[in-house]
């Protein structure tokens, strides 16, 4: 039981990362109908920005994170300008291809700047963690869980309790109708890109001390986040969160109880099971069917 609880804690921690990336992914699907294959690279770029601010420039850790998150929001706007804007009237596929291109471009730029050897980032806290009953709570996993919870609450408040949130939702449900009401649709989409990039970047910064910072770190995270999306229900926001958490727990348990080398395979096994048995995922969307 102690081991189970310990694995549950670790699994939820890693799952929270998948959930944050999956959330950014879903928001872009909903607001701009963009399937962004560069979502994982947002995490990679975010982690490298933290390396620059903290390791290179020597700024305080929290300030470094804050600066990196703000830079990521700006980066999201640039990314939108390069991959989405010129192709926005051409349907989904050209944009998907251009996000794939951008993700390859980003990895290679970082490779040129930083080389293939991974960078190391310390955790947010000096203390290794705290013992709570049978579970040792690693401080970095704890920061991931707390940050992810706060972000989900923040996002809920923004989307459900503010007029801006309602305009973002309206844009994601029917762009043409939103523009007929005078909602600045282009601005809403840019805000979504900025937010999504900041979210992905923050996920990368949070997971960096656990995983190392490497050029390839985004690819696997993005695949897991995509799987989380399908498991949770394509395009569903609660689905992205629960799907991410479920995936993190499943792979951590699978690795421990069944086989470590197959850790990554569990995620994709779970994805295949869902596609076969419940393709609409945990939260099959009613709204998109109706619209």
């Amino acid at each position, binding site marked *: 039981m102690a081991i189970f609880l310990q694995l549950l804690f670790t699994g939820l921690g890693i799952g929270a990362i998948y959930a944050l990336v999956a959330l950014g992914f879903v928001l872009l699907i909903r607001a701009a109908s963009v399937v962004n294959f560069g979502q994982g690279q947002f995490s990679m770029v975010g982690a490298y920005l933290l390396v620059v601010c903290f390791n290179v420039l020597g700024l305080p850790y929290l300030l470094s994170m804050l600066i990196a998150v703000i830079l990521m929001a700006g980066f999201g706007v640039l990314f939108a300008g390069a991959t989405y804007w010129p192709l926005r009237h051409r349907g989904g596929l050209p944009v998907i291809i251009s996000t794939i291109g951008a993700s390859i471009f980003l990895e290679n730029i970082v490779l040129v700047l930083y080389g293939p050897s991974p960078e190391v980032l310390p955790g947010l806290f000096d203390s290794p963690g705290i013992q709570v009953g049978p579970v040792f709570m690693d401080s970095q996993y704890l920061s991931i869980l707390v940050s992810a919870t706060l972000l989900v609450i923040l996002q809920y408040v923004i989307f459900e309790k503010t007029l801006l949130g309602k305009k973002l*939702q309206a844009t994601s*449900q029917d762009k043409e109708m939103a523009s007929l009401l005078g909602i600045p649709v282009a601005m809403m989409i840019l805000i979504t890109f900025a937010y999504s990039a900041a979210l992905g970047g923050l996920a990368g910064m949070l997971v960096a001390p656990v995983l190392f910072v490497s050029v390839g770190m985004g690819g696997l995270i993005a695949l897991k986040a995509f799987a989380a999306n399908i498991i949770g229900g394509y395009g569903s926001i609660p689905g992205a969160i629960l799907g991410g958490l479920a995936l993190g727990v499943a792979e951590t348990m699978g690795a421990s109880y069944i086989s470590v080398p197959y850790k990554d395979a569990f995620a994709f096994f779970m994805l295949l099971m869902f596609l076969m048995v419940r393709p609409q995922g945990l939260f099959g969307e009613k709204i998109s069917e109706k619209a």
Partner: protein
Amino acid sequence: MKLLELRTLTARYGAGDVLKGIDIDVDEGEIVALLGANGAGKSTTLRAISGLVPHVAGDILLGGKSILGQKTEAIVRLGISHVPEGRRVFPGLTVRENIVLGASNRGRLSRAAMDREVGEKFELFPDLHRLRDALGWTLSGGQLQMVAVARGLMAQPRVLLLDEPSLGLAPLIVQQVFKIIAQIRERGTTVLLVEQNAHMALSVADRGYVLETGRVLVAGSPTALWEDPQVRAAYLGGLAAG
């Protein structure tokens, strides 16, 4: 006074003009009906006014100033509110949220002003009051149409464009919708009303135009259109039915 003028307006989506040079005037305070068979170009006319058709030529004047080529969001801010075909109520937002978003073309409204205006819409559409927290996708066709019109009125438009508000509604609900259109005009809002239900449309309109494959076939007062045998035979089939 002429509020909205279309001057030899042409419009196309791809190849081939859908509107082939139409002239339409809407005076301040009028209800003007735009009639015609399915595919005549009625919706395209409204969409061109709102800046939703990619290729337009000729001119569109609002209060004497050209709005041709402006972005949709800018056109709404100038005071043209468009309630499109199919209602397009946001399915994942509540009735109240849908109505509130109708004021997006205006500056920031105080909470008190917003509550007052939404309250006025609930007076105009009493059924919506009890549905204020229902999500868009749960509503019936008639309810959706009322939300769409209430939302369109929140823009405080100089001209309200209504595209087939009676489509798909039960006769009793259609009567209700037209009663509300008459009420809207009494409050001073100008309406350009697209309808296939010519009988109902001409009963509230001051003037009408009949479109045929992208051209204005005839225009005139309801009685004149009523009595035009050619129009009667071909386009106002609704007369016999109604």
